């Protein structure tokens, strides 16, 4: 568990981070979002002590980060940046093995771990391990960047706009890979992004920052359904808030169990945007729902999607 306790950071006279408190549960993905200069990257850098706070504490599983040696602390925490920063003069394998090597792992164990990680991030070890970074595309390089961050099996992964410089298709692929990796390894991830769609897709906890202050924190659904103020409302949704809400609401929440409908049932765990898409493309206003976990079945109508209590105004 990562606890940020009343963190404050000044640059000259400006407050980059202002009395920020936030708790990130173990095994969750937390997105720090906000406009440029809102303090989200600075907050991330306070966690692994690339920057030192002027006030407050960072507690990692109960231990004050300030009580640990910075270099040793960083070797325990994965770190991924937008500019990737692979070492251009080293092979992919050596790049990924950097931290295990620093930690004194025996060579055969490092080599084994490198291959494991290349598999995990979706790159064929035999094909890629001895290549140089410049031979890879940007997306492949960032996959290696993620593998390098995970090399010593850290419990915590910090990501500073990791997919911000990639094209939409590549970004989508890497977001999927990250979700997949997180589902398998249960890492705690803190990710900085200015892309609210990325935050909604990846995070279970979103923290909205403005002017160094934490404006609101909550699940994607909470933020979209109940934005704390106009700033959050504009930031998380703007004109697309309703559509994004569909992306974070499960079908099961609106299903009328016991009712029936024609067609191939949709899973209750799918989100409303998928159900709406099925209705639009099928020219229907009602689809069957199946809850695979409980075996219950029901139906979802267009009205159920539009109005939470099933009653139109």
């Amino acid at each position, binding site marked *: 568990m990562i606890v940020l306790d009343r963190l404050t950071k000044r640059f000259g006279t400006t407050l980059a981070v202002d009395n920020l408190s936030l708790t990130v549960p173990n095994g969750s993905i937390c997105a720090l979002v906000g406009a440029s200069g809102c303090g989200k990257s600075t907050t991330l850098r306070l966690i692994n002590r*690339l920057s030192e706070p002027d006030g407050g504490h960072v507690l990692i599983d109960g231990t004050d980060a300030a009580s640990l040696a910075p270099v040793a602390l960083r070797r325990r925490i994965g770190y991924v940046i937008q500019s990737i920063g692979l*070492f251009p003069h080293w092979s992919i394998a050596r790049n990924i093995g*950097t931290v295990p090597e620093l930690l004194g792992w025996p060579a055969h164990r490092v080599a084994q771990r490198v291959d494991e990680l290349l598999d995990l991030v979706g790159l064929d070890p035999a094909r890629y391990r001895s290549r140089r970074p410049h031979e890879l595309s940007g997306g492949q390089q960032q996959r290696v960047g993620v593998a390098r961050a995970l090399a010593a099996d850290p419990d915590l992964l910090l990501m500073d706009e990791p997919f911000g410089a990639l094209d939409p298709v590549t970004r989508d692929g890497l977001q999927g890979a990250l979700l997949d990796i997180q589902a398998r390894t249960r890492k705690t991830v803190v990710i900085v992004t200015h892309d609210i769609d990325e935050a909604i897709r990846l995070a279970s906890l979103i923290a909205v920052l403005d002017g160094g202050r934490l404006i609101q924190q909550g699940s994607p659904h909470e933020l979209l359904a109940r934005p704390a103020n106009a700033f959050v409302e504009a930031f998380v949704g703007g004109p697309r808030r309703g559509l994004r809400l569909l992306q974070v609401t499960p079908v099961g929440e609106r299903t009328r169990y016991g009712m029936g409908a024609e067609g191939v049932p949709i899973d209750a765990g799918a989100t409303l945007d998928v159900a709406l898409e099925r209705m639009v493309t099928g020219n229907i206003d009602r689809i069957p729902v199946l809850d695979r976990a409980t075996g219950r079945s029901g139906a979802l109508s267009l009205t159920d999607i539009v109005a939470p209590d099933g009653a139109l105004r």
Partner: protein
Amino acid sequence: MSRLLRLAGRPAVWVSGAFLLVLGALPYSAGLFGALFPDLPRPLYSRASFLDLALSHAALVGIATLVVVGVGIGVGIFVTRPVGRDFAGPIDTLTAVGQTFPPTAVLALAVPAMGYGGAPTVMALIVYGLLPVVSATIAGLNAVPRAPMQAADGIGLSPGGRLLKVELPLAAPVILSGVRTSVVLNIGTATIGSTVGALTLGSPIIEGLSGSNPAYVIQGAVLVGLFAVAADLWLDELERALT
């Protein structure tokens, strides 16, 4: 094997071969220079063997280069660290002044303190050769891309580890080009060491100039020239191997 073959086609190999050939053939060239300069009573330099001159010349430049590389890269590293950043300006000025100082003046000042011979020559070469190495080291380290440096810090390399594993390897080609300039400069500059009694390939040149013996000047100049070009080409090979 294919590596050796590739090397055989390199100019560095050819020029080194030419240097060794001239060095080996000169002692037997009294007839040639006698024919070219019939008025000269002694057309071939004979106060010391050309081999001894070349070895001594190489040793003086080699010692000076070791010091220049050690001190130059050290200073370059120091002024690019947070602790030494304030010294970057003054150091830059100091090394530039060192280079504007004529080497003969350094010799004249060093002789009273160090006596005649090799020591003041090495001193002058060090002062003269520092600038290219210091400025290349600073330029090379400053040109290391930001991203790998940020990543190095973020994943837990210590400042020293980052310097050795990331910064110096990435700056190496630029630093080496500075070393190359320094070495070539000093192979030429070392010849004036013979004015204060050091044994160098400049000895025939100096004696030829003072004794109106153009044959001596040619013999020394050709060897120095080939030596400098060969050294330049070999360091160029090394630079390429690093990039």
